[in-house]
């Protein structure tokens, strides 16, 4: 059951998805890379430009639709998810992409985000997480680490941060993945996977704000530390990381633990990634340690979890069909008349 438009489109390139608008993000912003990767993969998904709609809320990331040569709406703060829900319910055949940030999707729009995920509209939610409020010039966000010193928290923030992947899983999202602006190949793969999933695809993208929160994800993205700190998930493969590919994660009962390969353990002893396993996903999303603490797990990137569940708009269409088949097509005159009438001469 696929509701997305499959039109025979002419062969397009990334350029066809760019327009003449001047891109106005700060030089060096991670958003540029994400825009480029999206424009790169769209020609590959075989959907005509006119059937793609990018909906955004408010924040730096939410300027995204203006730079796309598709249909788009830059809406109001936090509500892109709800607008996309209505659009998708009304027009299931459209390919709908939601572009949002950590403030937009997890703070002011947190409610709509969890409801979009549980309802499972077939949309792609790209959550640009830079752990800061950029457009308002630097206040802590709901994903900022504790004790964050910003303009609104000069003595350090008191808020405990959200773990977005765990939140999405808690909301019964059917597709949960994480990627980063600085790894174009991985990001492209994840965008394609998100698009291929029929249902609400939750893709968290670590995005560097070089003005107000520079280097927030450096430890995962820089060559010098990436191999040790980032764990790339691959379906059916053991969880291995490290510059020498010599470390792995195994499950000791329900407890994950880091082991050294060759020192009493080999790849067969490791946790084999299975993105269909809901229970393993519960553990995987919790590998969310502070990377600067003494002992910590590497941060996973890739698809944490994917499952199939009817999308809301498909279920809605089916219910209408079934109801119509049972009751017959509605007749307005009969309805207006009702069951009880009387005549006045």
């Amino acid at each position, binding site marked *: 059951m696929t509701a997305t438009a499959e039109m025979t489109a002419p062969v397009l390139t990334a350029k066809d998805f760019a327009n003449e608008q001047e891109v106005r993000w700060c030089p060096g912003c991670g958003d540029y890379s994400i825009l480029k990767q999206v424009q790169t993969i769209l020609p590959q998904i075989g959907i005509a430009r006119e059937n793609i709609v990018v*909906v955004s809320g408010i924040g730096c990331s939410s300027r995204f639709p203006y730079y796309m040569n598709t249909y788009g709406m830059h809406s109001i703060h936090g509500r892109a998810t709800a607008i996309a829900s209505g659009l998708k319910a009304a027009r299931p055949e459209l390919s709908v992409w939601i572009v949002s940030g950590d403030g937009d999707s997890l703070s002011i729009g947190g409610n709509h985000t969890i409801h979009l995920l549980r309802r499972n509209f077939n949309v792609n939610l790209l959550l640009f997480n830079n752990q800061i409020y950029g457009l308002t010039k630097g206040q802590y966000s709901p994903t900022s680490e504790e004790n964050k010193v910003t303009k609104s928290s000069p003595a350090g923030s008191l808020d405990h941060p959200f773990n977005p992947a765990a939140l999405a899983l808690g909301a019964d999202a059917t597709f949960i993945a994480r990627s980063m602006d600085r790894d174009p190949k991985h990001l492209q793969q994840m965008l394609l996977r998100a698009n291929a999933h029929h249902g609400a695809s939750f893709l968290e993208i670590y995005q560097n704000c070089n003005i107000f929160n520079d280097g927030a994800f450096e430890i995962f993205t820089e060559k010098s530390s990436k191999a040790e700190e980032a764990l790339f998930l691959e379906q059916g493969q053991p969880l291995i990381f490290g510059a020498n590919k010599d470390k792995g994660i195994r499950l000791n009962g329900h407890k994950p633990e880091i082991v050294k390969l060759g020192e009493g353990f080999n790849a067969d002893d490791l946790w084999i990634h299975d993105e269909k396993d809901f229970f393993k996903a519960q553990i995987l999303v919790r590998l969310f340690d502070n990377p600067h603490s003494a002992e910590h797990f590497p941060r996973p990137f890739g698809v944490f979890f994917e499952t199939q569940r009817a999308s809301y708009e498909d279920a809605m269409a089916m219910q209408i069909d079934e109801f119509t088949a049972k009751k017959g097509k509605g007749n307005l005159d009969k309805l207006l008349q009702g069951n009880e009438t009387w005549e*006045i001469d």
Partner: protein
Amino acid sequence: MSVPTQVVEDVVIKFAGDSGDGMQLTGTQFTNNTALIGNDLSTFPDYPAEIRAPLGTVAGVSGFQVHFSSQRVYTPGDSCDVLVAMNAAALKVNIKTTKKGGIIILNLDGFDSKNLRLAGYADGVNPLNDDSLQGFEVYKIDVTKLTREALTDISGLGVKEKDRAKNMFVLGFIYWLYNRDLQTTIAFLEDKFGKKPDIFNSNVLALKAGYNYGDTIEAFTTRYKVEKAKLPSGKYRSITGNTAVAYGLLAASEQSGLPLFLGTYPITPATDILHDLSKFKNFGVKTFQAEDEIAGITSAIGASYGGSLGITTTSGPGMALKGEAMGLAVILEIPLVIINIQRGGPSTGLPTKTEQSDLFQAYYGRNGECPMPIVSASTPSDCFDAVFEAVRIAVQHMTPVIFLSDGYIANGAEPWKFPQTKDLKKIEVSFKKELAEGETKLRPYKRDEKGVRPWIVPGTAGLEHRIGGLEKEDETGNVSYDSENHQIMVKNREAKVNNIADYIPLQTLDSGPEQGDVLVLGWGSTYGAIKSAVAELQGKGKSVAHAHLRYVRPFPKNLGEMMKNYKQVLIPEINNGQLIKIIKAEYLVNAKGYNKIKGTPISRAELVGAIEELF
């Protein structure tokens, strides 16, 4: 024994009891039965905000007033001829609006010491034993005992369940008193309880027992009958305001060819519209019960953007939450209808009581220069035509439109000479599908002669474009922070809304002379009270006219001129004076207000008094 029947012209009955006594159902059944015999009628359900308010207390009283007549009826009536009180609290609340000499039917069981205490009667005081009911025709019936006796043969139900049929006993008795047929209610019960034979049988037995009780006791010496009303000829049904809104939206969807999408969140007293529309799936209607009021309106904006007829329904507190999204719809310039079934405010206020106090909110309740057309409904059946107009304006002028109704007409019922589909106007809508000849580049905010931009929906090849909540450049729609441009766009959006005045009918008088002493100008649910008050004074030879606004923004073009033809203008409202301030600001008219803010409709009598004071 046969009791003689007396023909009467006009009757108001009030059914009152605990909120668990089934008074709303009893009232609705009596109303349907009344409608079917061809009386004109108007109803006023009045109930507490709690589902089961404290038993036996004054706060827990639920009432249903029905006014029926062989003459035209415009209000549920100021006071009742017949009061049915199921307990002491119901009597206490309603005795002051029962006519002297009227009939009071009391359920004896509801006047024991406990009920008297809960109703707040002083120790030892019992209205059944003192002289407080002197001047009324009082009938004390032990409804509980009689109902139980009638149901002795039903073995499958306990006493508590049997007692639930008490309201049917009362209904049966009133049917007897007004010479009615039981069949409509039996058919209703069969539909509702057909699958639960014990409950069905107990209700029917109680109904018949109540009817037969009237026949057998000799207390009543007269039965009554109200002849068919002299309404314009045609086929009628009974309708409430909220159902009329649902039907009007569906009709507008069919007549415009736009699929209907309702994004909403349940809120009293608007929820019934969701209930109704969610039944119409075989018309292709999509209803979406969103996670909150904001998602209700924003999902509707998404649907409108996609080319559907986007609707959201709510009441005052929900309107407050939707404010920012309304602003988005205004700046996007896309169609949307926001339905506000007003209730008492501010904040949670009086959820089940009526008020017209959201007019300022509709006019001004958004950030920035944010004009929106406002359409209001004046009676339950008028909701159909008014909401149809709201849709027409929204889709033909590319603007969100606010539709105002209120709890009084939303829940109230009246006869409706329903239209045939073939008599409904078409609502012409067109989407822009391609560039026009000579047009080299799409200008999504280029306006036509009405000041309206084209509606372009995703999926239209070659017209891809971006819209948003940032100020946009004139015509191109590109983001613009240019100061000159902002002023142009503010004026453009205002002109677009003002231009609607060219596409709505001129204001007409409902009754009265074209020039004279007093014009009573109303809007919304005060229609019936104004109409009957003005008619009474016209009957006394007073020079008084009545005009009732459907279009509250923009006003009909001739409104200012019309007001100049009278020495005085009176504006009655169920609020602290809102339309009057707008009218004064717009037309510099020295209008006077009559304002009631008690959560109840304005009565005919008090309005007659207010108008007479002007002479």
